[in-house]
C-alpha cells in the first residue's frame, strides 16, 4: 500500500511541475507575440525623429530583421538557458540586470508576508473568539478599510506620519532592516485584512463541528480550543490564501510600492525600463515575475498537500 501511495504522490508532483512549466511557456510565448508581432522594438526604442536607416541598423542589432520563426526559436532556446536578450538601455544582459534586483524584491515580499501572517492569524482568531462582539466588528472594520485603500496611498500616509512628521524611519531607499518596515506594512495590510476575515470565517465554521463542541463541553476554554484545535483545520486554507496573497504581491503591490519607496527591486526596474523604452528589459522583468507567480502556486499546492494529506491528488 505504502509504495503505491508514494508513487501516486510522485506522479502528482510530476504532473504539477509539467503543468507549471507549460504555463510559463504559454505566458512567455504570449509576451513574445506582443513584443515581436504587434510592435517593432526598434521603433519603440528609438526617438520619433530617427531615420529609416537608424531603424534598420537597430533592427539588425536586435536581430529582428530575421524571420519570426527564427526569432521565436532563438527566444525559446534562450529562455531555456536563462538568456533573455540584451538590454539596450543598460547595454548588459537583461537577465543579469533583473536577477541583480531580484533579492531586493524577494526581501520586500518576505517582509510583507511576515506582516500579513503575524497580523492575520491573531486578528482572525480574536474575531472568532468574540464572534459578533465588539472585537469581531473592529476586525471587520480593519479588513474593509485595508482592502479598500490603495496600497501606494497607504505607503505615502506611512511616510508622511512616520518618516516626515515623527522622523522614526528613513523616507525611502533600502538601508538595512529599518527601511523594510514601512513598505512591508504598505503591502501587507491589505493581504492581512483579507486573510483575517478568511481565518475568522474558517474558525467560526469549525467551532460548530462536533469535535470542537466536544472540546468546549469538556471544559477547554474557547481560546484554547481555537488555538489548539480549530486553527489546525483552518491552516491548509490559510497557507493557500497566503500563497495567493504572495502572487498578488509579486505582480501588483511590489511594483507600485517599489516606486513609492524608491526600492531597488524588479518592479521599479521594469518601470524605469518602460521610461527608457527598453522593451527587452521589460520583457525580461515580466517573464521573471510571471515565473515567480507560477512557482509560488506550485509551492502552495505542495505545502497544502503536506499540511493536509486529505487534499485530493487531482
Amino acid at each position: 500500500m505504502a509504495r503505491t501511495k508514494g508513487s501516486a504522490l510522485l506522479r502528482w508532483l510530476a504532473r504539477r511541475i509539467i503543468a507549471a512549466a507549460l504555463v510559463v511557456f504559454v505566458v512567455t510565448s504570449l509576451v513574445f507575440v506582443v513584443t515581436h508581432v504587434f510592435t517593432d522594438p526598434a521603433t519603440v526604442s528609438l526617438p520619433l525623429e530617427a531615420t529609416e536607416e537608424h531603424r534598420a541598423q537597430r533592427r539588425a542589432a536586435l536581430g529582428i530583421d530575421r524571420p519570426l520563426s527564427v526569432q521565436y526559436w532563438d527566444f525559446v532556446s534562450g529562455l531555456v538557458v536563462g538568456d533573455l536578450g540584451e538590454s539596450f538601455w543598460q547595454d548588459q544582459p537583461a537577465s543579469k540586470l533583473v536577477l541583480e534586483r531580484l533579492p531586493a524584491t524577494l526581501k520586500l515580499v518576505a517582509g510583507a508576508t511576515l506582516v500579513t501572517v503575524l497580523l492575520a492569524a491573531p486578528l482572525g482568531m480574536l474575531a472568532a473568539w468574540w464572534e459578533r462582539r465588539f472585537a469581531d466588528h473592529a476586525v471587520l472594520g480593519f479588513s474593509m478599510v485595508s482592502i479598500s485603500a490603495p496600497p501606494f496611498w497607504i505607503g505615502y500616509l506611512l511616510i508622511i506620519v512616520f518618516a516626515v512628521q515623527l522622523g522614526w524611519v528613513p523616507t525611502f531607499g533600502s538601508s538595512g532592516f529599518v527601511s523594510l518596515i514601512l513598505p512591508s506594512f504598505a503591502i501587507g495590510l491589505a493581504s492581512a485584512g483579507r486573510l483575517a476575515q478568511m481565518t475568522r470565517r474558517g474558525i467560526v465554521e469549525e467551532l460548530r463541528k462536533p469535535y470542537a463542541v466536544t472540546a468546549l463541553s469538556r471544559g477547554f476554554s474557547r481560546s484554547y480550543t481555537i488555538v489548539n484545535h480549530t486553527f489546525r483545520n483552518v491552516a491548509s486554507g490559510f497557507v493557500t490564501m497566503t500563497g495567493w496573497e504572495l502572487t498578488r504581491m509579486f505582480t501588483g503591490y511590489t511594483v507600485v510600492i517599489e516606486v513609492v519607496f524608491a526600492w531597488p527591486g524588479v518592479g521599479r526596474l521594469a518601470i524605469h525600463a518602460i521610461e527608457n523604452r527598453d522593451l527587452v528589459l521589460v520583457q525580461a522583468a515580466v517573464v521573471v515575475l510571471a515565473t515567480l507567480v507560477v512557482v509560488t502556486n506550485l509551492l502552495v499546492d505542495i505545502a497544502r498537500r503536506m499540511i493536509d494529506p486529505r487534499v485530493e491528488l487531482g
Partner: protein
Amino acid sequence: MTAVDDGLPPSEGTNGAGAASGENATVMSDLRSHLRKSKAGIAGIAICSLFALVAIIGPWLPFLPDPSKQSLPDKLTPPVGWGGAWDHPLGTDQLGRDILARLIDGARISLLVSVVAVIIAAILGTALGLVAGYIGGRIDTLIISAADVQMAFPGVLAGLILVAAFGPSVWLVIIVIAISSWMVFTRVGRGLVFTLKSSLFVEASELAGASSRRVMWRHLLPNLVSSLITLSVLELAAAILSESAFAFLGFGVQPPRSSWGLMIQQGRNYITDGWWIVTFAGLAIAIVVLGVNLLSLWLQSFNDIAEREQIILERPGG
C-alpha cells in the same frame, strides 16, 4: 441554425432572485426590507450614489473653480482647519489648482474607466463561461486552460508589457483591467452552469428541441444574473484600485487631464510641504472603493451562497 421555440417560458430564477417579471415586485420589496436591516448596505449605496452623482454632474456644480485654473500665488494653500480659507476647502496643489475641483474632475475618468472595464470583462467572461459550462468537451478544456493561464499572468504584468509596447493610453488601461478580470466571470459562470445543467427546466427545454443557443441565453443566463451582478460589484472595487495604480504609474490618462491616481503621482514630490494633495486624492479612492466593497458585502449576504462568497473573496491574482 434556426432556433426551435420550445414553447416554454424563459426560465425563472431557482435561487429566489430570478429575473422573471412577475417576481420582480416581491424581489424588490425583499431587497428593500433586507436593506433596512443592513447598515453596510445603506452606507454602501449612499457612498456609491454620491460618487456616481458627483462624477456625472461634476462640471455643472456651482461655486467650484475651474479644475485646471492655475494660480501660482495660491500654490500649496493648506486645507480649511490647517490654516486655509474656504475659497479652497481642501487646499491647492503645487500649481495653485483647487484640490476639491480636481478631485471631482478626476472622479469622471477614474470611475468611467473602471465601469467600462468591468462591463467588458463581465460580458466576455460570462459568454465564455456559459459556452464552457454548457457545451463542455474540448471547448471547455480550452477556455478553462486559458482562464488558468490568465490567473498566472495577472493584470499588472500584462499592463507593463503592453504599455512598453504601445505607450500609455486610457483604452489600454481599460483593456488591461478587462483582461485581468474576465476569467473570474468565466469560472463562476461555468460553475453555476454545471449545477444548473441537470435541472428539470433545462432538460425540459432540451427535450422540446431548443437549440443550445436558446438554452444558454433564454434559460441559463437569467439564472446567472443575480450572482454575476454581485460579482461585478466586487470586481468593480478591484478595477477602481487597478485604475488608480495604473494612473499612478503613468500608464493611463496623461496631464493636463486628471485622475485620482495621477494626482497622487504629481503630489508625491510635495509630501513634506503639501501632504494634503496625496492624502485627499487617496482618500477619495479609498472611500469610493469602501462604498463599493460595502455594497458587495450586502449583495453577497442577500444572495447568501456561502461557496460563491468564497470564490469571490478568496480568488488569487490582482
